[in-house]
């Protein structure tokens, strides 16, 4: 060990910080600063909910602009050193930058939604927005982490404010109950995940995600390879429990319906989308690291892993759709539909693993290209999902505000009283079903397409595809149930005099419009998605 010169260390650090880390990490820094500013403002300035909201919104917008400038750099090809930074714990490349942009955009939507639909006092507003931003920060870190420990930190940073957000309506019995359940379930799942991380890092000797592949391959190639590989798989499955919790995949979905029903619709919308975007980003990165270049004993595990994910995806899709059948509470129904949608998205990852298995490499297809296509489909799906799910939950919040109910019985005639909200709901719901020409259709289409490619390697993927396709038919029933209640039911007495605020209308249209645009002109978005996929799979 060479003797340490303290000043050299400091100098290197400042240089790194100034030239490399801060510019790359600018959006997150802005979010951090915004959190601090909100808290400071609540002490110094006269507290109003509006000030806090404005501060949070400006912060997020600035952060998004930061992402925008980074996008330019990524897009221009002058890439500012895509790769690991911040001591290697984060990744900065053409994939993470847009994903972070997606997260920030989503946070802005969630923020504006809660700003316009939740009525709370100044003090509560400060806390709410702080928690929202804190959770967003965690998601941002999670999405770009290249280190399992960093991922865990991001995971907890996203979850813990989430527990508090679910319980934000302290005075409601259901809210506190939901929060407690979410907390206990989340703690158990993250504990399992952490235990898995500890085992995996012990077995491989590294916490790095990008080096995971080579280390696992090294284990597989030695004499004790078979047993050690099993241990690796075990720890990977433990880690997967954490992912599955965040993505609410069967059989680790139990928290989702309860937490979403107990939480306010805005929070439910936030929880249902943000975690997915960030977690899928990490899941894809891990899947890529663990597949493709494997050799020896470890390589044999890629295809089974892919099939395993396929089974989980099938279970999630089927379960989510079937369990949604008899739900009467719109939030709970949407929670189950969330489970199903996670399943659809997971199908893309399953297809990716199958395609990148040694069997795929020897089958003569262009593995790189089809892998890119899988990722492209997933990204597109996520992007549409951001809008359609937050739209659905946001409209549920509006139902609650205007009709005082979130039950299918109670929201009858909502679409008649508020035609614009109704139209936006139609767009969101039909997109969730996957009808053309809405964005959700393309998402499903591309995911099914990757499954189809994968089915050339493993016929099991054809089964997954069939189950997925069958489920789109199933899901129609309960989605149409919402629309039926909202449009065909007779509104309650006296509700016809209700008028929607123009800001609400504007927000609803702002969310619904991209779904429509993504459906009719998916070209731009897919080009972008394929750009992202290309930077991930070189």
């Amino acid at each position, binding site marked *: 060990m060479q003797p340490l010169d303290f000043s050299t260390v400091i100098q290197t650090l400042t240089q790194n910080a100034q030239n490399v880390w801060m510019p790359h990490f600018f959006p997150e820094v802005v979010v951090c600063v915004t959190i601090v500013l909100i808290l400071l403002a609540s002490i110094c300035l006269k507290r109003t909910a509006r000030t806090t909201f404005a501060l949070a919104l400006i912060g997020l917008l600035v952060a998004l602009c930061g992402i925008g400038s980074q996008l330019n750099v990524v897009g221009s090809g002058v890439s500012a050193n895509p790769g690991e930074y911040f001591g290697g714990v984060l990744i900065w490349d053409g994939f993470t930058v847009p994903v972070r942009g997606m997260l920030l955009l989503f946070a802005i939507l969630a923020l504006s939604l809660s700003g316009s639909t939740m009525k709370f006092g100044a003090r509560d507003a400060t806390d709410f927005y702080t928690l929202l931003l804190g959770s967003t920060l965690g998601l941002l870190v999670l999405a770009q982490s290249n280190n399992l420990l960093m991922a865990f930190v991001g995971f907890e940073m996203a979850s813990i404010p989430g527990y508090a957000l679910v319980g934000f309506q302290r005075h409601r019995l259901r809210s506190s109950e939901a929060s407690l*359940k979410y907390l*206990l*379930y989340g703690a158990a*799942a993250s504990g*399992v995940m952490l235990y898995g991380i500890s085992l995996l890092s012990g077995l491989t000797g590294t916490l790095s995600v990008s080096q995971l592949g080579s280390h696992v391959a090294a284990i597989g190639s030695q004499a004790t390879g078979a047993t050690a590989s*099993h241990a690796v*798989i*075990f720890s990977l*499955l*433990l880690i*997967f*429990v954490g992912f599955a919790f965040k993505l609410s995949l069967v*059989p*680790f979905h*139990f928290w989702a*319906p*309860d937490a979403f029903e107990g939480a306010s619709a805005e929070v439910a919308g936030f929880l249902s989308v943000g975690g997915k975007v960030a977690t899928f980003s990490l899941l894809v990165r891990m899947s890529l690291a663990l597949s493709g270049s494997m050799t020896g004993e470890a390589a044999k595990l890629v295809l*089974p892993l892919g*099939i*395993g994910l396929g*089974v989980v995806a099938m279970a999630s899709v089927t*379960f989510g759709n*079937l*369990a949604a*059948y*008899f739900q*009467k509470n719109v939030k709970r129904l949407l929670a189950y539909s969330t489970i199903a949608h996670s399943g659809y998205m997971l199908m893309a990852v399953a297809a990716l693993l199958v395609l990148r298995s040694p069997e795929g490499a020897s089958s003569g297809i262009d593995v790189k*290209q*089809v892998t890119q296509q899988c990722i*492209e*489909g997933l990204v*597109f799906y996520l992007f549409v999902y951001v809008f359609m799910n937050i739209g659905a939950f946001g409209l549920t919040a509006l139902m609650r505000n205007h009709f005082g109910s979130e039950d299918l019985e109670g929201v009858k005639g909502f679409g008649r009283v508020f035609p614009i909200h109704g139209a936006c709901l139609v767009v969101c719901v039909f997109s969730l079903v996957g*009808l*053309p*020409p809405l964005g959700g259709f393309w998402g499903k289409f*591309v995911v*099914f*397409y990757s499954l*189809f*490619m994968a089915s*050339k390697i493993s016929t099991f993927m054809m089964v997954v595809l069939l189950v997925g*396709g*069958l489920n*789109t*038919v*199933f899901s*129609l*029933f*309960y989605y*149409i*149930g919402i629309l*039926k209640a909202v*449009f*065909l039911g007779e509104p309650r007495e006296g509700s016809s005099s209700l008028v929607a605020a123009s800001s609400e209308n504007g927000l609803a249209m702002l969310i619904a419009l991209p779904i429509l645009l993504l459906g009719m*002109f*998916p*070209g731009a978005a*897919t*080009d972008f998605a*394929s750009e992202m996929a290309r930077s991930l799979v070189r």
Partner: protein
Amino acid sequence: MSNTIAQDLATYLAIAWLTPLLSFVIAIFNGFKWGRTSRNAAFAATAAIATGFVSSAIAMNRWICEIGGWDKLLHPDHHEHHAYAGVFYDLATFGSLKLSISYYIDSLTLTMFCMVTFIATCIHIFAMGYMSEELAETYDDHQAHVTRPGRFYRFFAFLSLFCFSMLGLVIAGNIFQVFVFWELVGVCSYLLIGFYTERRSANVAANKAFIVNRVGDFGFIIGLMILWTYTGTFTFSNAHMEGAAPGLFEIIAAQATGASEAAHHVAAHGALPTVPQTLLIIAGLGIFAGCVGKSAQFPLHTWLPDAMEGPTPVSALVHSATMVAAGVYLSARFYPVFTTEVLTVIAYVGCITLFVAATIAIVATDIKKVLAYSTISQLGYMMLAIGVGGWGAGLFHLITHAFFKSLLFLGSGAVIYGCHHEQEMPKMGGLLKKMPVTGFAMAVGCCAIAGFGIPHTNLAFSGFFSKDAILATALAYSKINPSHSLLFLAPLVTAGITSFYMWRLWFYTFTGKTRDRHVEEHCHEVPKIMFIPLLVLSMLAFGCAWGGEEGVLYSLLHASQPESCAISDAGLPTHHHIHESHETAGVLALTSALLGFALAYLLYCKSVISPAAIKEQLKPLHSFLVAKWRFDELYDAVFVWPSKRVGGFIAGIDRNVFDNAIDGLAASAVKVAKSNRRFDEVVVDGAVRASGEIVSALARTFRVIQTGRARQYVLFVAVGLVLVVAGFFGVILPH
């Protein structure tokens, strides 16, 4: 040279295609402003579709000039396929998956455009009169017993949207675009069937149509995926574009005929991809499944009669003349992709459908339901024709059918309008005196659908020519393949049945004595705006097929006929064969039709024998038929009952939580089973019901797991973990 004509045609058709969209947008956004009593929406929609017709006619003219005039069309020197393909707009690229809005124009496209726009124009005009009751601030819906605001503009907006989707489907130059518009016409149909949303039956029917169609569409997607995976293109054909990559049809054709024909492609683009034979069959069946759903073929046909819940102009346009014909149109388009096995399946599906639907039509009493079943039956004829190799005959019938069926529907609409929304035939009778024009028009329609005419002359109704063509092909086919002789006998018998039930309808409605005084008193002839379309359409229903297979219409269609189906023409009759059997088939069909007519005349006009007595006498036979199948009971015993028990055992039956959609389907199944209809409906609806039962049982089980206890959830984490690990190491890894 060919480039400019392609551009010209594309421009004209694009105008025809997009003006309805424009009118839809205008109507939707201004409808509210115009007010409920304004006719503006109707004017906009009618003007748009009329523009479409003019534009299509210009395009047709341009095409005929291009090929060298009418003479050339009627007497082509050699079979040459004048088709033009191109791209309007590139939509998106997913990896190697390129999606664009493109066009594929040949004489079939042009004919379809002219037919759709023309009929739609007539129906728009008719609907202005028919829907005029909606022109009010309040409209009393007697069936649903509610008073609601009128929806005049909404109706025309939807109608425009439908026209746009339908034309988009016809002009589409790639399968993907077809699929999108395919879904879009489904959505329009959903909106239009459910137009009277207050009526529960309309809701159920709309849902049913939508869901049944989705079942078929799933097959379509699979077919589409297979074709794309192996050929790498969605485009139909690029043969007429210089330097473009080969389209689907060329690839399949090259595969079928061997490499020789595609040699120049190989030189330009490298070896052509091929599709494995079995997958080609699956793809063909998948695409056909989509057509089965849309064209209401057995076993997915039950949605169409229910769809009659929509307003009658909708039934005329969407559910008889155009949308349901889209399935036939698509089957015809994909003819080059179908293998002989698929064609056989198509023929049999068509054959079963045409017979089954016709038998049901005999006993139906609702005037629109009779027509609905007859539509299904006639669509079956078209499918049969395509299946036995009579490509031209099938499409010939498609066009003639569109004219006479829209005429019949509008006629029935006029009757319903005249009788103040009475649809039950037993309550009508003797209407000819009160409604002479309608009666005359309906008579023309009946003659056309029954296929009356004098052989060896041009003096025949359009249906005669087209049905004759189909039967001749079927006869030729069954001569070559004696084991498939059913494919000729069933349509022959059905020709008689068709004539019988159509004339039964006519005699029931227009002759005899009045059966219901109330209806009689209020009955009146329809206003001018409604009977002018009737007259126009009856002229076309009579004369559109003038000249038969030497006439203009058939020649137009024949010019687009693909050279072969996918693999080989083994077993399919040649032109020569068909020509030989023409005479026999024509005479037989006419005899059969006349017999049917005579029977109907005796039974329902002269009342020589009382129909009721016959019904009474045939009751044992009838019950025997139903009882012999015992399908509903069997089904109950095998599927419904156990799943009910399981569901009840698991969570206790909670009828109240039944989801309305499933409930609606189940209720319709029960209704159908109870009423004196035929077994097949029970089968299909029973399947829907049974799957509903199974799904609900499963769903209840899942609800039980969600116990609501935090500790048990944690336990489930452990259990889930064990499951995942055990499943992985125990099941997945060993394989």
